């Protein structure tokens, strides 16, 4: 089974960590994403975690569960958390499942 999701972390100004995702979020890749979100959210030097879906071409309910888990974990860590740039199919999935605004998805 090949790697279906790449996760690249970018340190940005204002203690922000951007997780730039590329590929597909499903059962096979969700665990790595969860770990990356948790690591960023619990980092004391990080005030804001941005999950950037710009290059994600597929997401399912397992991926949504991972993003919502990330939101909860960030809340516990008092880290700001935003999911940004859902495109095409990904945006449609977040809309149909009704979680788009809860995840703070923008653009």
């Amino acid at each position, binding site marked *: *089974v*090949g790697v*279906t999701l790449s996760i690249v972390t970018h340190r940005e100004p204002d203690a922000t960590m951007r997780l730039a995702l590329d590929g*597909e979020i*499903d*059962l*096979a890749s969700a665990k790595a994403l969860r770990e990356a979100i948790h690591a960023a959210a619990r980092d004391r030097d990080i005030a804001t975690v941005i999950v950037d879906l710009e290059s994600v071409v*597929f997401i*399912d*309910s*397992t991926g*949504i*569960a991972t993003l*919502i*888990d990330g*939101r*909860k974990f960030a809340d516990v860590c008092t880290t700001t958390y935003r999911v940004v740039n859902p495109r095409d*199919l990904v945006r*449609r*999935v977040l809309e*149909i*499942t*009704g*979680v788009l*605004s*809860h995840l703070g998805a923008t653009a």
Partner: protein
Amino acid sequence: VRVEATATAHVFDHPALFYRDHDDYLDAVIPFIRAGLDAGEAVLVAVPEPNLGLLRDVLGTDAAGIEMDDMGGAGRNPGRILGAVLLPFVGKHSGRRVRVVGEPIWLGRSVTEYPACAQHEALINVAFAGREATILCPYHLDGLHPRIIEDAKRTHPALWQDDRRFASSRFGDPITVAESFNTTLPPAPLAAVKMSIHDLNLGDVRDFVTAHAIEFGLSKDRVDDAVLAVNELATNSLVHSGGAGRLAAWIDHGQVVFQVSDTGHIKDPLAGRTPAPVDQIGGRGLLFVHRLADLVRIHTLPGATTVRVFFDLPGAERDYR
């Protein structure tokens, strides 16, 4: 002047209305709707055409205060009527009694769809138990098969016909009645294409669904729907059924069918029918499948579950349209 039978005696009221023609329909449904408006209840009319247009014409300006949904589309898949139509309406009007005209079974429903419709009717009683609501379900007495009318008596605690309002002596335990429609599905055709689900091969599953959905003639959006739905079912096999399952695909009566079978068991008959709160982490898979597919049929027993999802091919116009 008709007697309003939906008094405060029951918290949840779920009568079936047996009607023969348009006049019959309007004579019962219009006063039902107006009584709800007069009582300050939130009113939803979810019926197929042509009845939807008929009600809209007669209601005139009253229609403005009512939510009206074409059940032919919103309830195309009966498995999503609770999760995508009825319960979201209740959620939007919390604190208010709701009144619904819900017509999930109409003349164009196929033999394949019908058991899922009957399960839905039975499970309304479970999902709405204790809720401040009245759901009136019209049944076309002359057009529908007599067996369907008999089933309606099992799934509705109250029956309306002409001027009579009476309790159904046939009303049964809703879970038991729903279970009676959990029956073996007809065998897949020998010509079905197949693959196995194992070792997290979801990318392969999606490629398989994409290729066959295109080959079978689904439009671009519906190919996406099929990929998303089958991906969810395959994920369930991987998570809940020892990491394995089988996938098959074929065309049947103007629909593309995908089947996922495994050794799991779906114990909760309401699984996939109750909306997930936005902050809930999981529990969206089957709900999402119901939103995407035109029909979902499930046969589930301990150790053996088969789920079929159906997608209408373009041009395969169905009776209800």
